[in-house]
């Protein structure tokens, strides 16, 4: 748990593994939010900013128990919850100290997915590939807000950059 007993700013966690054990470990890394106490993060939680997480793994319990590499209460995010091994390569969260900012600065390499209604969301990320979505038609499964760049894009850009919205890929450039 990060920030459960006070503020935690400018930290880096590298290669953290949550094993099955007798628990098992539910969340390998749990980022607390003092405004929204959740689970083991209580009312005494402090501010968490500028946190970098690399190589985070959860192992679940061989199919009978879902666990997550990261549960982020700041952004209500839980990337890659899974009953088996799940990994996050990079998850970096900045801060929202700017009162004009509508959210947190953040980058993650894992997208995750919505697990259940009202539950933690996945992570919008930046993806690339050579597949060509049909504008407003091709389904997208990642978290809404994920960007996708077609590296083989042509046609003046209309098939080059997309955003996942309402379950479909939408082109940036018309």
């Amino acid at each position: 748990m990060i920030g459960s007993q006070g503020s935690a700013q400018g930290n880096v966690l590298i290669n953290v593994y949550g094993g099955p054990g007798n628990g098992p470990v539910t969340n390998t890394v749990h980022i607390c939010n003092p405004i929204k106490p959740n689970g083991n993060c209580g009312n005494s939680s402090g501010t968490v900013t500028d946190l970098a997480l690399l190589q985070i793994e959860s192992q679940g319990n061989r199919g009978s128990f879902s666990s997550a590499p990261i549960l982020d209460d700041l952004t209500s995010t839980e990337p890659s919850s899974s009953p088996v091994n799940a990994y996050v390569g990079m998850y970096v969260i900045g801060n929202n100290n700017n009162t004009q900012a509508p959210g947190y600065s953040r980058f993650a390499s894992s997208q995750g997915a919505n697990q259940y209604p009202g539950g933690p969301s996945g992570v919008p990320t930046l993806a690339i590939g050579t597949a060509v979505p049909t504008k407003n038609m091709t389904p997208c499964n990642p978290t809404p807000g994920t960007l996708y760049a077609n590296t083989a894009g042509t046609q003046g850009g209309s098939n080059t950059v997309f955003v996942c919205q309402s379950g479909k890929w939408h082109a940036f450039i018309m």
Partner: protein
Amino acid sequence: MATAKRLKTGLGLLVVLLGTSSRLLAQGAAPTAVGQNAVVQQINPVAAINAPAFVDASVYQTDICTAIADVLMNWTGGQGGNSSGVVIDARGVSSLDCNQSSYQNPWANLNGSGFTDTVLLPAGTIKIYQTWTLIANTRIIGEGPNLTTLQAASSLTSNNGDGDMIDMGGQPVIVNGTTYYPCPLNPKNGIADCTGVVIEHLGLDGGARSGFTVNGIGNNFSEELSYVNDVTLTHIAGTGLSVGVSCPNNSCAGYSSNSGPYSNISYTGTGVCLNIVEKNPTVGTNSVRGFHGLTCSTSIIPAAIYLDGSNTTMEDITIIGSSSSQDGILIGSNTNAAARADALRNIRSGGSLGNLIHISGNTQGQPPQPDVSDVTILNASQGPQSSTNVTIRDELTNTTLTDASIGMYVLGEPVTVGSSSGYSRFTTSPNSPTWLVGTASLGTTSSCPANGTGSLYTCTNSSNCSSTTLWACASQKWIPIK
């Protein structure tokens, strides 16, 4: 103050003690432990007693392998192994050729439980003829990688035939009807599980004779508190350092999970510098405590380093190759393994390499999943004397980056695009889709490179970019978005 000369009291030698000028040592019970120092106890009567701090192996007057084995047998309770442990000082042993040794592997007839042993090796070249299979809680420490050298004889043999000079733990072996356990069996799964196996401050010389392939260090059985530090591997035609699992016939008998760190290692040879492999992700990861400070100089094709394990950290790695067909680090090439949540930092090439870092496009399972995911690369660069062609080659995203240095390359996981998929990925290289930031307005006619197709550009200057703040690179032009 008093000093004592080395005693060999088991043979009834005279005890000679130098005392202070003010008092004489009373005759006490003569020390009886071969190899121990005699010290003066400060009670009346003042007498020489055995010092249990360490055992001097030089008084055994045999070759170093036999001397170590004899001390172990004498001081650890032999097979029962119920001693509290022993420090063996072999720095005074002068016979360093184990050819005629009764115990060419000094730990051969011991069980790895119940005691610890630390062996201090002498300066010089120790010639070994059989794999040294270190048992649990064994530490071998040289006087330095350029001073203490273990050299493989051309007839080097090993029980399991792997050709390693040193194995960190091993499977049970039967000798003359007796089963010996180098590693105790884990009661949960019956798998050999060593702890506390350490190799430090020495060199391994593989001999490098024609037709003779030998490996350096292998770890398939040692886990917590096991590590390698300050070791040179020279003239190795096989694999310098192998860290993985023992899973013959798909049935695993040992792991190296939680071992490490493996640090300050130099490899010179014609084989594989480092091989990291796990069985597969459903068996469990092979998470180790990283490889920190490694220089590999080798000519082998296809790769100097194989990374087929998960949760592995590699940092401060230099690879000196000799061929444009050679990869420095090849990730995910083993289709029976996976490479997930790995991190590579400060990876540097020297000499000639085709790809400094090569991410395999292999997949496994149904629906197919890539062998590689969630990999973070920070600071990959080509050294000033390097003629490396490609810094990062990523087959999963069909990306080839030839930048002299790349600050960050993060490959995540598949992202669904209809019936196909892309990959979440971020890089700081401008020669692949990325997110750029600047203060210039790009207008409507600025060009962008073809390999940057899909890049985004944000203008942060509100006066320059009042009409447009976000552009995308498409058809080699920056297209205004918003």
